[in-house]
């Protein structure tokens, strides 16, 4: 059950020129309401922006005096620009917990595949599964890389790719995923988050190797809670599902990738 809550900013760190690491005090959202990585918070971004902005939870911890959640976001437009100007001690108005997060089981072994600003929501899974997690992280170029160290500290193996080859392997993450699965497809599931074309390629590789794959999808939202039917995504059977309520994480097989 989601609640509306004013959350105090307790940490605010730029992690590259356009990306921020923001930690919020979220009341008892983690302990009582089960907030976890992969879900999202719907964040009001100032009076001048009518709609809230959905931002994924990267890490969520029970804590005293309040539970905390880390959001990692990139400045794209007016809303995220407003958010980036918040300082420690400011409060932001948040709806949450929203959405489902990835479905994982204790003792599972996971291949985490993140692209760009899609890497943060997987961080919580990296830190939960540690030696049972392998991460493939893709970025446009070396200067866009975020969270590499955090992932390296947590995971068994981390593969870095960049589109232009300026860091790690030259190329897209799906090629790296293919190489990994060719050697070892013994994963409980692939958990993927990133731009839609990346998810589509990763889903295709996963299907080819018969590895279950969950993808975290994005769509433009209004309400964030399932009331407005704004955030539809097309499902393979011709129906619609909603990112905010049925997702953001979907089974890759469920999604209609051809639209």
């Amino acid at each position, binding site marked *: *059950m*989601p*609640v*509306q809550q004013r959350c105090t900013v307790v940490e605010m760190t730029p992690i590259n020129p356009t990306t921020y690491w923001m930690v919020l005090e979220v009341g008892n959202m983690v302990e009582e309401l089960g907030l976890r990585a992969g879900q999202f918070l719907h964040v*009001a971004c100032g009076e001048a*922006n*009518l*709609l*809230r902005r959905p931002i994924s939870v990267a890490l969520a911890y029970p804590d005293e005096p309040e539970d905390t959640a880390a959001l990692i976001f990139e400045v794209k437009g007016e809303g995220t620009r407003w958010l980036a100007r918040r300082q420690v001690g400011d409060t932001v108005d948040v*709806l949450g917990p929203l959405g489902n997060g990835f479905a994982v089981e204790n003792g599972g072994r996971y291949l985490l595949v993140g692209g760009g600003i899609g890497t943060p929501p997987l961080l919580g899974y990296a830190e939960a599964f540690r030696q049972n997690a392998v991460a493939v992280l893709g970025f446009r170029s070396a200067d866009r890389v975020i969270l590499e160290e955090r992932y390296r500290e947590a995971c068994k193996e981390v593969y870095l790719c960049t589109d232009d080859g300026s860091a790690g392997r030259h190329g897209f993450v799906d090629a790296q995923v293919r190489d990994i699965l060719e050697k070892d497809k013994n994963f409980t599931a692939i958990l993927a988050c990133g731009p839609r074309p990346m998810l589509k390629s990763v889903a295709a590789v996963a299907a080819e190797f018969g590895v279950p794959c969950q993808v975290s999808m994005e*769509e*433009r*939202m*209004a*309400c*964030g*809670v*399932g*009331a*407005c*039917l*704004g*955030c*539809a*995504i*097309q499902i393979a059977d*011709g*129906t*619609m599902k909603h990112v905010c*309520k049925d997702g953001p994480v979907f089974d890759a097989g469920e999604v209609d990738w051809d*639209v």
Partner: protein
Amino acid sequence: MSKVDLSVVLAGVRLKNPIVVASGTFGFGREYGQFYDLSELGGICCKGLTLHRREGNPPPRIAETPMGILNSVGLQNPGVDAFIEYELPELRKHDLAVIANISGSTPEEYGIMCEKLSEAGVDMIEVNISCPNVKAGGLAYGTKPELAAEVTAVAKAHAGTVPVMVKLSPNVTDITEIARAVADAGADALSLINTLRGMRIDVNTRRPILKMNTGGLSGPAVLPVAVRMVWEVSCAVPGLPILGMGGVAKGEDAAQLMLAGASAVAVGTACFADPYAPVKVRDELAELAAEQGLARAADLTGGVRPW
């Protein structure tokens, strides 16, 4: 401050307060019902129903604009039968007026839905005439007085004792012309405004943000248009009750629409920013009425004193 009687009557239906939630912005109440008891509301206009289940339009369906949003959801809904079977009983667990909102592509479809809904026992039927008429070559019912009147008459003929409220589109040269036609055809109430048609383009991709290219504008940006149209309509068809809506986010906004002639007010887009918006609007309206020393919120209705 004295206690204000918030109850109002809309087309014979008593609402315990004048705040209703607008069709399509509140689903069937399940989601926002997690935040507060739906009995706080005067009523709910349910998500627009069609005769058969519809998946709606392809995404993206939402674009933000200055103090407004564009939507092209396009009547995604489970169909009128599923509503009656699964949603209506849930809503009936709460104390609020249930207003079913319907769209058809032929007058017959409107008729069938009205029959089913009146039999199922909704409190009111809101007839959305902003949808294209397939028979008249896709022309929207809401833009031609004759078409609007035809749909109204059919709805009335099939709704039994359930009041029929017709929802007007603001995308017209003269809304009073449509209002009069619908009134003459027997409407028990009018609701307005539906969304204004708008567009937003992503200047980098050069694509419209909405997959349907254009969509309906709602939210605070449209409030002044809504106030003007409610006032015009209430002058043109005096005595016909009006559910006012369009951009309401504060008690003052609701008061403006009531002064312009609305008996009750619907809150829509404001819910997206703040799930509690309808409750806050109600409380602010009550406070405003109390400050003005009114005994009843209904005393606001039509109270504007034009120059």
